[in-house]
């Protein structure tokens, strides 16, 4: 359906996604979330609110946790993006993913990709967080199912396993 006319005004944006260089054509104000989901087929990032409140679209951009629904794609030019799809090494789950499974940190799963990335980011900065630091570190990611307790347990378990030792 995209005619050449509609294509006018789009820019080429180069970025690295989960370790692979990518070039996408997009309107500069298109949301990183939509580019990831629709052009790159990375549907792990979810839209929960579209206004940066719920964190279910969280991804890492140059090692910073961002709400991809608030990032215009132009701003992602030249950056390195990590999505949930980039966390596991093949079949080998990342420690946090294992911990979320074991501790019950994921129920309906819709907040899980963003929540795991937020926890990953937290443990990268602070490998041994206190409970209070975990609570604060995850407070930008809403979960309606778990009441968070089992998520805290999962983060604690991952921290114990040295989640970021790699």
């Amino acid at each position, binding site marked *: 359906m995209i005619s050449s006319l509609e294509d006018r005004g789009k820019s080429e944006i180069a970025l690295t996604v989960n370790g692979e260089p990518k070039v996408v054509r997009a309107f500069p104000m298109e949301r990183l979330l939509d580019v990831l989901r629709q052009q790159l087929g990375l549907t792990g990032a979810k839209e929960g609110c579209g206004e940066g409140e719920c964190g279910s679209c969280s991804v890492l951009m140059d090692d910073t946790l961002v709400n991809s629904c608030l990032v215009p794609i132009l701003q992602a030019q030249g950056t390195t993006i990590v999505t949930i799809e980039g966390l596991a090494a093949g079949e080998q789950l990342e420690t946090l993913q294992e911990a979320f499974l074991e501790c019950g940190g994921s129920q*309906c799963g819709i907040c899980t990709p963003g929540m795991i990335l937020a926890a990953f980011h937290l443990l990268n900065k602070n490998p041994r967080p206190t409970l209070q630091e975990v609570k604060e570190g995850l407070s930008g990611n809403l979960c309606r199912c*778990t009441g968070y307790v089992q998520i805290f347990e999962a983060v604690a378990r991952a921290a114990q396993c040295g989640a970021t030792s790699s």
Partner: protein
Amino acid sequence: MNHERIVGTAVPRKEGRGKVTGKAQYVDDMLLPDMIYGATVRSQIPRGRIKKITFGPGIAWKEFVVVSAKDIPGKNCIALIGDDQPCLASDLVNHPEEPILLLAHPDRHALRKAVEAVSIEYSPLPPVFTIEESERRSEIVWGTDNIFKTYRIEKGDVDGVWSRADYIVEGEYSTGAQEQLYIENNGMIAAFDAERGITVWGSLQCPYYVHKALLTLCNLPAEKVRVVQMETGGAFGGKEEYPSMIAGHAALLAIKSGKPVKIIYDREEDMAATTKRHPSRTRHRTAVSRDGKILGGEIEFTIDGGAYATLSSVVLSRGAIHAGGPYYWPNLRIRAKALATNAPPHGAFRGFGAPQSLFAMERHMDRIARVVGLSPVEIRRRNFLKPGQTTATEQVVHEPIDLGKLLDRALSLSEYHAKRERFLIENRAGATKRGMGTAAFLHGAGFTGSGERYLSSVVGVEGCADGGVRVLVSSTEFGQGTKTVLCQVAAEALGLRYEDVTIAQPDTTAVPNSGPTVASRTVMVVGKLVASAARGIQQTLMLAGMLGDSYSADEFRTACGSYVAAHGQLLSWAQYEPPPDIFWDDQAYRGEAYAAYSWAVYIAEVAVDLTTYSVSVNDFVALQEVGRVLHPVLAVGQIVGGVAQGIGFALYEKVIWQQGRMQNCQMTNYIMPTSSDLPPIRVFFEELGNVHGAFGAKGIGELPMDGPAPAILNAVEDALGIGFDSIPLLAEDIFETITARSLSSESDVESGVR
């Protein structure tokens, strides 16, 4: 029960890997070739007649598929209990989010502009917005009297009790609407071709509800409607009924356009248009003896159903039956009614009426305690239901429940007495006042009364070519662990490993109707049927001489695989049969309302900051008897998650209404608890077992929604010496009350505080 190998252990969640890797497919993750997008044009007024629809300038309307009520092939309604809710309004609109037109286009952005470019002229009619306005009947907005449903439960001789009472205690309690706020918004994809009919894929709880609604709407035979549940990102009741509406809309657009159509709501549309918890008002009048025994009482339970009947009658029924709480009432009259207003229909939300009526009951128990001069603990202890006594519907309690013991354990786990004594002293100084609050409650598992008999659920278990077995149910997974627990049950019943059992994705062409995934019925009712169907497989293999009396999992797999190779298939079905000792009278509303109840005592510790007037919950003990706990991690997850929603119900989540429309339909201004807002939520179980449930299980999902709000409000009263009977209770409410009190008494704020 110790010989059980799989039930009671924390096996990995069946669909967990997909969820933690981002590979799980939710409806918005799915693409079909040539798919276009659909959107809904809604009413802008609460009540009136549509006069004229104008398609505004600047839009290439020829590119759009437009559907109105006249395009509906079948009956213009969303078939549920009654058929009063139209799929698309054609003349009359009854609430401000009523769907009128549907548009579809390949470009989502163009679609949004087109929705805004449609203007509709109305002849407005006077609307009704509150329970009080509705019951005054100055405007009749539904039926002949604005009443969707009434119930009356009568036990003993209530009228004879007042003259014997030492105290008569009255109270009025109210609860607000609450948004389910699943993080995945509602969404559906529909595709149509003349040969196969309609297929919808979506985020939903009840595949066969959607199936039924589409048959009626599209006028198609059952085999030409297929409903498939995608991974569902939270539901909590919020995807029980409204998905039928969205599926209907997507189907109509797909039929007219000939293309697959995806409709995904954004957060604002989801919050504004879809169902929320029914607002309620409960009035209590209770006769009490000098020693604190309830002699009898009247309870009037009223809910605001919104513009159409939808599920209000059933929500009302559960709320009414639970209204007397876990107490023995020798004499009791419960009058319940569901009323119409011009708001979007209210609907199912975890607890389904019980959190509303139990909030009132448990606040009222604290009021009775104060009037009689007993402690909140003692008043409950003296009135708890005991085995052999009867509930409000005269159901004899057969379970060996000891609520006094449950209460003692909760008091000890929460250090209730020590903390209360300490707070009494500490509260004399400083701006932070602390308090402890208790709530005792019960929750019936499964459909109410004869509901399970009407549902008559069917489940299947299939032997597979590889020797494993597959569970066939329409029961859906949306976070609770349905898939995991039902596989545990089948594995346990057959003596297999958990890994030997899989479960089909709910798809109405592939699974039987095991009933809706609601009412805390899945583990208990469906689980029991799964165990029974699984044993049918075992019997077939034994009768065929392929399996001995005792066997290993590998021997089973060999036998099962050989059977399937020889006979083509191996299927076993089980259908619900009402237990012989269950009797329910739908007319008198008397009898065994539920096959089993879960029981709980919750204790909240709160601190009220008199500088900001905010309440924080600092500790929360949730102790419950839920029968056998089939999966310890999932069970704790259900309780903690429910308590968190209950804390939101009590202290955070306020729907602000204006002209029947939710004003704060964003996550920015409708506040649910974040990870920083919640106390430690400490979960404990008692396990008595239950003959009606799989391996002794009872319902668990809804129970934790019932107790937090009254426990917290009771704790606030304990802290401040001022009671609040309405939720949500926000800082501004406390501020206003305390300020008004100090102005009227001209005394120091502190004097109003214990």
